[in-house]
């Protein structure tokens, strides 16, 4: 396997008034193609900052973030937009759907701007939302909304699916369904998945589990006993 993500010694700090906060400190990480990597850590550990930096919606102070051997920290604005458009799929904890667009239109929102989208209906079928195309987010349950969010990310066939607490707002049964779906996407489309969560249980389905604490990698462990999402004990 070749690595799709190679992070080398990234640092990121925030300053608010007089207070200074080191979010990431000399973090290095490698993710192989097709892997599911779970990044665990409590609030404030820097996991979201790392995910945002990989997704090019936040900048780092120093270090390299290579995606498919290309250092995105050196990208210009145009390259960054293309990178986000074509290579990355985001799944958010609060789904972040556009409330006055239907299920179909929310997915179309992404399909319209990427160069090689999957057929929208195929993705809708894949995430199990068949028949709900014309519904608005407010007419869906939390789990259904997260499915739309996943479909929106997947439709562009991204190399990397970045999931920020994808089950954080869901009950255990729905969470399992969502993780199942992510697993399915990983297998069906060979999409590399990076999930950040504070929920330890999710790590059972990962190929590798990385633990962050106070902006530093505390552990990076290969999961010898991968369970299917269905088999996770919540």
């Amino acid at each position, binding site marked *: 396997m070749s690595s799709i993500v190679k992070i080398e010694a990234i640092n990121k700090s925030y300053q608010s008034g007089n207070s200074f906060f080191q979010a990431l400190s000399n973090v290095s990480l490698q993710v192989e193609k097709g892997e599911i990597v779970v990044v665990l850590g409590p609030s404030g550990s820097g996991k979201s900052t790392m995910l945002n930096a990989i997704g090019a919606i936040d900048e780092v102070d120093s270090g390299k973030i290579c995606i498919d051997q290309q250092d995105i920290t050196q990208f210009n604005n145009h390259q960054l937009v*293309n990178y986000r458009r074509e290579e990355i799929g985001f799944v958010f904890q609060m789904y972040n759907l556009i409330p006055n667009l239907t299920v179909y239109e929310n997915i179309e929102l*992404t399909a319209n701007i990427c160069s090689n989208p999957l057929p929208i209906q195929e993705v809708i079928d894949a995430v199990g939302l068949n028949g709900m195309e014309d519904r608005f987010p407010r007419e869906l349950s939390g789990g259904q909304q997260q499915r739309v969010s996943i479909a929106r990310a997947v439709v562009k066939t991204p190399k990397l699916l970045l999931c920020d607490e994808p089950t954080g707002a869901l009950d255990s049964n729905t969470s399992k369904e969502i993780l199942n779906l992510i697993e399915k996407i990983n297998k069906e489309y060979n999409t590399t998945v990076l999930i950040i969560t504070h929920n330890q249980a999710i790590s059972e389905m990962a190929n590798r589990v990385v633990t962050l604490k106070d902006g530093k990698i505390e552990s990076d462990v290969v999961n010898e006993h991968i369970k299917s999402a269905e088999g996770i004990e919540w």
Partner: protein
Amino acid sequence: MPLRKKLIRTILEKKAQFLSAWLLIVMSSIVFYSFTSAGANLIDNLDYFNKTNRVEDAHFIVEKPLADLSQFEERFQVKIEKRYRADVSFSTDTTLRLLDETGKINLSSVVKGEALDSEEDILIDQGFAKAHELSIGEDIQLNDKTYHVTGFMAIPDYIYPLKEESGFLKNPDAFGVAVVKESELENLKENLVYYSVRFSENNRGQFKAFLNQNNQLINWTDKKDNNRISFIRGDIEGIKKMGEFLPIAILFISIAIILILLWRLMKKEYSQIGTLYALGYKKSEIIRHYLSYASILAISGSVVGTFLGWLFLHPLLSAFASYYNLPVLVVEPHIVLLIVSLMLPLVFFIPLTYYLVMRVLRITPVSLIKGGELKVKVNRLERLLKLDKLTFKRKFVIREIIRNLPRALFLTIGAIFATVLLLFGFISKNSMEYLVTDNFNSVYHYEYNYIYSSLQTTLPDSGQIGSSAPFTINYKNEKQSLTINGLEPNNTAIQLQDIDGERLKYDSVIINKSLADKIGLQKGDTIHVTNQLSNTTFDITIDHIANSYLGDMIYMPLNQFNQLNGYPSGSYNQVFTNKELDISKENLVSVTKSSDTVDGFKQMIKPLNYGIAGIALVAAIISVIIIYILISLLIEENSFKISLMKVIGYNRGSIRKMMIGYNIWFIIIGFLIGIPITTLSISAFMNSITAEMNVSFPVKIDWFSIIISFSILILSYYISLWLNNKKLKSIPMTEAINRSTE
């Protein structure tokens, strides 16, 4: 495109707010296009009419008839035409002025009907025909002769049919003009002969001097001093200025409202904007999306407004053209104005909206996804205020105000704007009423003013004598016309007072306020004046300024007037009297009745009342829109707080009082600031449009108008509250709970 659908759905979701802002743009475009293009079309038609119908440059009366006009024409490269006019009685208190059919200058145009064919035919001005319900084909009786009305006409030297060229109020009920064959007027004993002239070279002075060599100029009126010809230009200027000032002001208000709406919308959509970033949308695509809101409103508003403006243009033009006796021959869309009307909102909106969107996009995508940082600033002003001793409710309200000062300021500006609009109509009416009822009646204490066609030396049977002549003064490199009146020191027909109300006697030189304001004269100033009839020049020193606004006048002792002008001692050319005198009409240039002027005013004030009601309605609509949008935004912005207050147990009345009620103070403050702003701006506005007219406008306002305007404004406020009541009611208590768990 999904983003386009989002755009349309968002507008539909907030339709009341967007529709209100859109209406303001529509109103702005209607006013801009209808008024400016009406002004431009009127100028076109006026110029076209004056050119094709060869309006005079001046007219004059001489003591002895001019025998050979061609020698003048050749010598001075002018066109001269002998004119006849005769005032005949149409009915009791109604005069119809008969003019002869000209061939070279001041040609009449048949607006409706047929041209003159025989000596029994007559063409009548439209305004007079309408006022007296005369129709084409009808026969009328004048001086025991029956005339057949063959049509209605317009004539360039009577576009504004005033009995006196220095008058300012027309009254078609009492006065009108008609055209008959020259032979008809030659035979009338009350006819007056005068001459119209058109110059092709700048040799007016030589021409007048030549006339005075073997003859005596009794009266000379330049086109610009003839209100029958010149008044229309001032009015068109007024229309055009109104068409520029009002829509720009409305547009600024709508821009501010739309920017507030968009700012609020974007704030609400921070996380959507951040998500679009994360999905790979370019900054330019996000900017385009938000610019589309402003563009849709601006383009659709200006297209609809301009179209309606085009529809309004026609009735506006015909109303104006029929008020003045001007035929509307062409109506052009005026492409430049059309383009400006269509583009103006867009030109204002796009850069400002762009700036606003760019400000939002300066926030990092990560912050945007999180919904932006919540900032509850405690500003310096709030820290300075010691609110500890106040009750909770009062403290709450004061903090709300201090934390939202820009919104309070905008509400105040909105109230000022609505006040200016409301008071505009009232002040115009009050000022007109003052000009005539107070000023006219307090100054002029006579019923008849007889002006002779030559200087008189024997005293009349009754009445008070005086003299007047047209003069010019050089002001800012231009000749400003004025009239100098010589009066006997104890004259009581014209009673002037100074600014302090002190009665002035005619043993000194008095200038009226209208002229003093126009050329900036003070007591003690010396001016150099030139008699337009004789070219005699002399200096006079101003002793007093009189509080009178009618005409540009100087008054001085009659003896001094005669002496300075080289007129015989004791001579005079006018008589002021309260009873009708038996003076042969051929000896007179004109007879003016004060009651006709007052009637004319009453006639004129009638449509003004409808105008004021119209302006008040527009002002009320605008204020309802502004207040409605601001209060609905306030409710939306504070929905969490309102919901929380409902959960805690506050009733709707208390919530309304604490969250919205205080806004009434900004309406009141706006109204109070609006009063002086209105008087100052009307004064400037009126000065600019009356600069070319020999009348100035005293700006007056009464308590009744203030109370009515205030009531309309407060009513608008309560209507806005009532419209927003549903919104306040619909905020669920669950919102507070849901939002705090997110």
